């Protein structure tokens, strides 16, 4: 019927293939936006660099733009993503920063799912009554908080008050074990170091909570709306008629169907989460791609890093596309009426 495991593999494979032109398009846009809109590109890119760098740069920009693009693509594939003005290579740094950001985003997503979705269920269950209004106040206050404000309030007041760390991934600058995955919690677990695992989780709590609190509204709202659509349906009534308690009726029968919409929307919010990391990571000194983006565009008085900024744009774009792909696949898996083809 188009829903066997082999169909699923073909389905995912096809979606991954569709990803290739999308990512190529992203690279084309990024490249031409950054190479066409600046007058004297070399002075703009390397204001403090020496004579040699400027010469090299001018030699390359005097070539036809398509040749430049071809060179850029080859460099991109080879992992030669340029360097900052202090000589730090972009690619190795990004390769270690991306997992840290993924860890933060996944932790925020986890909180959004385990807190935001049940809140949506409660809001639907008590729709129009006090429970509903309280939940709405909660998620709207998150939605209305600017990221910088939420992050600073959490770092300055909440962290010290709750005794939670507000700085970095671990209490020491480098952990006493190899950072295999560059995800702080996962590395500590792989090393089998329990104190460091606890330490890493406690460092993760505040930034993830801020990120989740600010983006949670969409999960709660979508869950509430689709629950309200599902609850009057006949199968909810027949689940109730079996003698199931309200908890099982809500979370097993109604939510399972309401989740199909919520999942799709959560994929779309990945963009919001990623852009949120720029501020959150800087405030909490999280060594991820958001913090890298902040310094690359000259935030906090740092020297701008053009190569790094371009790389960040590409990485963020890929992140959004992949998140949507995952949501798309999950949609097919969650709804048995969707055929995998």
């Amino acid at each position, binding site marked *: 019927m188009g829903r066997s495991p082999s169909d699923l593999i073909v389905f995912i494979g096809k979606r991954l293939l569709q990803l290739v032109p999308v990512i190529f398009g992203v690279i084309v846009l990024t490249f031409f936006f950054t190479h066409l809109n600046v007058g004297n590109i070399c002075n703009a890119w390397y204001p403090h660099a020496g004579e040699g760098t400027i010469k090299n740069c001018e030699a390359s920009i005097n070539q036809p733009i398509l040749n430049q693009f071809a060179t850029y693509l080859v460099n991109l594939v080879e992992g030669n993503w340029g360097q900052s003005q202090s000589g730090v290579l972009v690619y190795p740094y990004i390769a270690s920063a991306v997992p840290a950001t993924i860890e933060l985003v996944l932790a925020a997503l986890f909180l959004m799912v385990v807190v935001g979705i049940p809140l949506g269920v409660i809001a639907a269950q008590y729709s129009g009554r006090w429970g509903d209004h309280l939940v709405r106040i909660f998620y709207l206050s998150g939605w209305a908080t600017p990221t910088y404000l939420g992050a600073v309030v959490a770092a300055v007041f909440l962290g010290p008050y709750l005794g939670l760390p507000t700085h970095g991934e671990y209490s020491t600058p480098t952990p006493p074990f190899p950072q295999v995955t560059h995800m702080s919690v996962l590395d500590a677990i792989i090393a089998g170091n329990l104190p460091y695992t606890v330490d890493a989780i406690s460092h993760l709590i505040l930034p993830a909570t801020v990120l989740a609190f600010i983006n949670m509204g969409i999960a709660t709202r979508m869950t509430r709306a689709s629950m309200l659509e599902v609850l009057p*349906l*006949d199968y909810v009534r*027949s689940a*109730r*008629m*079996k003698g199931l308690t309200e908890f099982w009726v809500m979370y097993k029968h109604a939510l399972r169907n309401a989740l199909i919409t919520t999942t799709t929307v959560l994929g779309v919010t990945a963009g919001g989460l990623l852009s949120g990391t720029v501020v959150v990571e800087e405030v909490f000194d999280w060594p991820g791609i958001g913090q890298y983006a902040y310094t690359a565009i000259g935030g906090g008085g740092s020297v701008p890093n053009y190569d790094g900024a371009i790389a960040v744009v590409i990485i963020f774009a890929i992140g959004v596309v992949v998140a949507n792909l995952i949501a798309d696949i999950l949609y097919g898996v969650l709804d048995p*009426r969707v055929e995998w083809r």
Partner: protein
Amino acid sequence: MTDPVLSVKNLSITYTVGAGTFQAVVDVSLDIQPGRVIGIVGETGCGKSTLAQAIPRLLPEPPASIGSGSITFRGTDLVKVTRRQMPMVRGTGIAMIFQEPLNSLNPSYRIFDQMVEAIQIRHYRELGIVKTFQGGDRPFDYSKRPTPDVASTLARPVLPGGAAEEEVRTRIMSRSEFREEVLKCLRLVRINDPETILNLYPHELSGGMRQRIMIAMALSEKPALLIADEPTSALDVTIQAQVLTLMKDLIDEVHASILFISHDLGVIAETADEVGVMYAGRVVEYGPVDEVFRSPRHPYTKMLLAAAPRKYKADGPLRSIPGNVPNLSRPPSGCRFHPRCPLARPVCKGENPPLAVVDPVVGDSPRGAHRSACYFPEEVPSMP
């Protein structure tokens, strides 16, 4: 006479929509004796489905609200039972088959997962693992096995094969035993290859198949009372006949007490022992099926029977009842049928006629069984 399984007394239900209120059910009383099949007929909007859903308290409250009356199920007034306790009454207590088989199964779960839930609930209640229903003046504890004579008074249905199926289980069934139980229930509703059906999703099955599964699910709970709310109305005619035949066979096999709701007079005539005719929220006539259908004593019943199509072109053009079903937010005074009734006289506009006993005509029906809410029941047989 034994105690009725279900006894509804003077039940009134109103819907509040915006500023208006609709009296969907007014002052309805009925008793269901163990093992009897009670039919309720009436037009769309006469309140029969509201009545059916009010018994297991499935109506959304608000907008619906039970104004007055009681619903006594096994000695407990369900009107007073709290929202928290209600799930314990459903399932093994009262099961229900719905009108819309297409939407009554959860599209996200396989048939097995949905059916096994019902069986698990019953099984855990029998073992006393999960909380069971206790309350009211005569608590019923599902974890205690009924003794044979109690079983007969409660009319606990048994699956074909009788007592052998009813062996006492003292440990939790394994997954394969649950599977066996589900298969047994699917075979009970004459599904040919239950093993394949188990792993399918509802959207892969036809309407008739889904309704059979709903019936199997309701019976698997071994309920004391089964409410069938227009189980065949949404199906096309050939499937309707199949499902109806199945239900008739099952009624004989399971000896359950059944409340059968339908707008189809033929369906009620074939299945029910007693029938209540509803019009605009009231029961206008009640009695043994043979009595009511052969010699109706309420003008509405008579005209409803005349309006039912029999055979193609056999008895001329179809007859209809002149006028419309009254607006339930402003029902007519007195007898609610009087604006459409050929026998109506001034007295009908005053007080609503009580459901009074009429003389039996057919066979050996006990006197008092046939009642009609009309001031002139003796004139009904001679109506044109």
